[in-house]
């Protein structure tokens, strides 16, 4: 029993959940002890989006140092814009819109990997550059207009049962599948192997190229999915709808216990960290501090949480 507990506490994702719980508790206490359930419910609703892109970002980061997808916000925007424009508030066109949005996201992923592989551009810069092009495409397609989602899509994105958003349940299932994929499929093992040592992975007979390709495509498609869902959730797409997700997608992955140096991904931690990040902002909002103080506190708390819970792999002699 004790062994189980200490093993549990040793898991890299526990810290993020503990931090989320603590922040939630403080928020509720400060709010006078009420609203805890509602806060949690909206935290789940909004964390869902961060988790979707976090899953893709985690896969990318796990393929090794220097791998990160900075095109997630732009891809979200493009996908949201395409979906809303094609659907044009018609329920009958929902599937068409989703298919087109996912198709576009797929192409973004292909383009990202193409830049990395064929032009040998470091991923950070490749995805940053492509994000500019993607955003321009979104601008020229959407012209900055905010078109409403069809009602069924909006209903699905915002529906809740007993305070638990449907979308959160669906994404929890998605996360479980990705977690399983990471641990128990050849693709997942290859991702982890590449992250530790790309050359060794190649020499072990793993398909390095196809795996990296699939990873960047996966990340882009998850971003695309998030773009569609978010548009459904908040009543349309906007050119800046992805802005918040650039740093957030990286932060939730790393706070969640995924190694920045690659080779070790962690799925549950993404949930913990996404909830933590949302609840942290909420807590500071409830405290009602001035914007400057709020920012400073946000930063210090993130640093404190990672300092207490988030040591990278323990040093070996």
């Amino acid at each position: 029993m004790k062994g189980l507990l200490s093993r549990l506490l040793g898991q890299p994702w526990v810290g993020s959940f503990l931090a989320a719980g603590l922040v939630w508790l403080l928020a509720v206490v400060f709010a006078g002890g009420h609203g805890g359930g509602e806060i949690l419910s909206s935290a789940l609703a909004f964390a869902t989006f961060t988790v979707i892109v976090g899953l893709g970002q985690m896969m990318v980061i796990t393929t090794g140092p220097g791998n990160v997808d900075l095109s997630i916000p732009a891809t979200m925007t493009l996908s949201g814009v395409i979906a809303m424009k094609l659907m044009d508030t018609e329920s009958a066109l929902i599937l068409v819109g989703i298919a087109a949005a996912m198709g576009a996201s797929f192409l973004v992923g292909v383009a990202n990997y193409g830049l990395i592989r064929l032009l040998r551009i470091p991923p950070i810069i490749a995805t940053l550059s492509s994000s500019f092009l993607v955003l321009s495409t979104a601008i020229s397609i959407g012209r900055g207009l905010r078109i409403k989602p069809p009602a069924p899509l909006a209903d699905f994105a915002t529906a809740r049962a007993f305070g638990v958003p449907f979308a959160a349940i669906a994404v929890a299932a998605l996360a479980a599948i990705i977690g399983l994929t990471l641990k128990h499929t050849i693709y997942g093992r290859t991702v982890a192997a590449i992250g530790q040592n790309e050359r060794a992975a190649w020499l072990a007979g793993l398909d390095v190229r196809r795996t990296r390709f699939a990873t960047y495509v996966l990340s882009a498609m998850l971003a695309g999915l998030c773009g569609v869902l978010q548009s459904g959730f908040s009543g349309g797409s906007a050119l800046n709808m992805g802005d918040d997700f650039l740093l957030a997608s990286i932060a939730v992955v790393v706070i969640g216990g995924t190694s920045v140096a690659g080779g070790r991904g962690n799925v549950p931690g993404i949930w913990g960290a996404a909830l933590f990040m949302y609840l942290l902002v909420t807590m500071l909002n409830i405290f009602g501090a001035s914007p400057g103080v709020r920012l400073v506190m946000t930063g210090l708390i993130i640093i404190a949480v990672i300092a207490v819970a988030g040591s990278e792999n323990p040093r070996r002699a």
Partner: protein
Amino acid sequence: DTKDKKIALSNNYAGNSWRQAMLKSWDKVTKPAVASGIVAAADAYTTSENQVTEQAAQIQNLILQGYNAIVVNAASPDALNGVIKQACDAGITVVSFDGIVTEPCAWRVAVDFKKMGRVEVDYLTKKMPAGGNLLEIRGLAGVFVDDAIHSGIEDGVKANPQYKIVGSVHGNWAQEVAQKEVAGILPSLPEIKAVVTQGGDGYGAAQAFAAAGRPTPLIVMGNRQDELQWWKEQKDKNGYETMSVSIAPGVSTLAFWVAQMILDGKQVPKDLTVPFLQIDQADLEKSLATTEKGGVANVEYTADDAAKVVAGASK
């Protein structure tokens, strides 16, 4: 006579519907002006991020390109002063609008953002004189517009102590962010009578209230079409009343005409004020009808409008 003069628009951000509408208005008004030979060129330049340094570099390049006037929506009121001065020194007319600059050599087509905040509270005093709890949605911390609107609201609340701001979040002028932040703080708040906003955040707030199952308070809107549409739906359903206020993206065209007048040798005072665009209950249907689906309520200006504004300010 300005037929061989070239005017450039320096814009620092294109990532939201307001800026897109602004660029579109510019296009709509300057194209005919160029075609009919009023000016030789009126090119729009935009950078990707809301960044001073990128815009500064951009303006420097516009100087090098030999434009006669630069119409600028500045990323910062002060931080571009260095480069604005360089432009003036190179003999270039600089007209700033929306995001104005403080460098004395430049012209300012300003919106009184502080007053905009004040107007929101003034409206409340008429609508609900009894007062009540307010939720404030602010913009991006550290940006001039956010600070100005906020201080207007603050003044209003100070003058009318029956109102109390019980919560404040940063919506960064984006519906998604506003929705997220409001949803988070809402459970901790007592009953909210009204939400004071900065534009581009009202619809998100409305959705957050709906999702939380709370009664919809009076939410000040920011002239976005989806906001007006929502307002209309509520109005038809239960007679919901509110107001909507924001700066019209078409103000870029006013700045264009002002620049043209200055190049033409007209006397133009350095500080001009444009009214913000306010939509009241009565105007709602009309404004909604003239606003593009998914866009922003807008007015474009003609040369005559500009002359009137200038004449008004010169008095």
